[in-house]
């Protein structure tokens, strides 16, 4: 998440950045992960849109996400249209075409690839200063 927050800070003036909160990957009532139990990351699947909104809000706060968040509907329209679950990155160019699509997460979730895709589309507004 720090890498994505950094990208957001770098590009937010030129790129519409959004987190799309989708179905939980490892909820307590589904495929729970030992690591999440150890870290007390215990989240039940939201079953109403209201629950999902709350879960999205809690997720953004707990994970320290600075990027504005959108919430998928209860038909999982966004997840299905973009094959987003459990996590995935996209960049869409100015004409509305897919410029970058990561492979399916967690294996294919690489913010550095997204950074390269963004760099091709936009010159960075706040270029990182050379330190030497």
């Amino acid at each position: 998440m720090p890498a994505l927050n950094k990208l957001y800070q770098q590009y937010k003036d030129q790129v519409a950045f959004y987190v799309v909160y989708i179905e939980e990957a490892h909820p307590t009532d589904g495929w729970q992960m030992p690591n999440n139990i150890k870290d007390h990351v215990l989240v039940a699947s939201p079953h109403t849109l209201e629950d999902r909104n709350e879960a999205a809000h809690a997720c953004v706060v707990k994970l320290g996400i600075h990027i504005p968040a959108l919430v998928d509907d209860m038909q999982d329209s966004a997840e299905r249209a973009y094959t987003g679950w459990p996590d995935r990155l996209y960049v869409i160019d100015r004409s509305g075409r897919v410029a970058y699509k990561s492979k399916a997460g967690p294996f294919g979730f690489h913010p550095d690839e997204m950074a390269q895709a963004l760099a091709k589309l936009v010159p960075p507004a706040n270029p990182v200063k050379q330190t030497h």
Partner: protein
Amino acid sequence: MRKTLVYAVPVVVVYGILVGGLFAAMLQPPAKFGRIMSRLPSVTFFLFPFEPMWLMARKGNLKVGDMAPDLALKTADRSAEVSLSSFRGRQPVALVFGSHT
């Protein structure tokens, strides 16, 4: 030789069936796949080529260069509805799909 085959063939066949079954599970909607995985032992990850199977099963239909499907979703604070198509011709969009867990 023949004795080895007697054991090897069923093992290969059973393994093939299990790989096919796991792949079929990966093609299910996420919640259903999660329910199936929650019942399987964690050794499943090591016994099968989980990562390449997952990347293939979750490839999706969208390709680079395709028009991005429109989404109209509310923000988490319910303050606004955002439509992806509203950025067309104006600025690029970066999307991070994910959840808490």
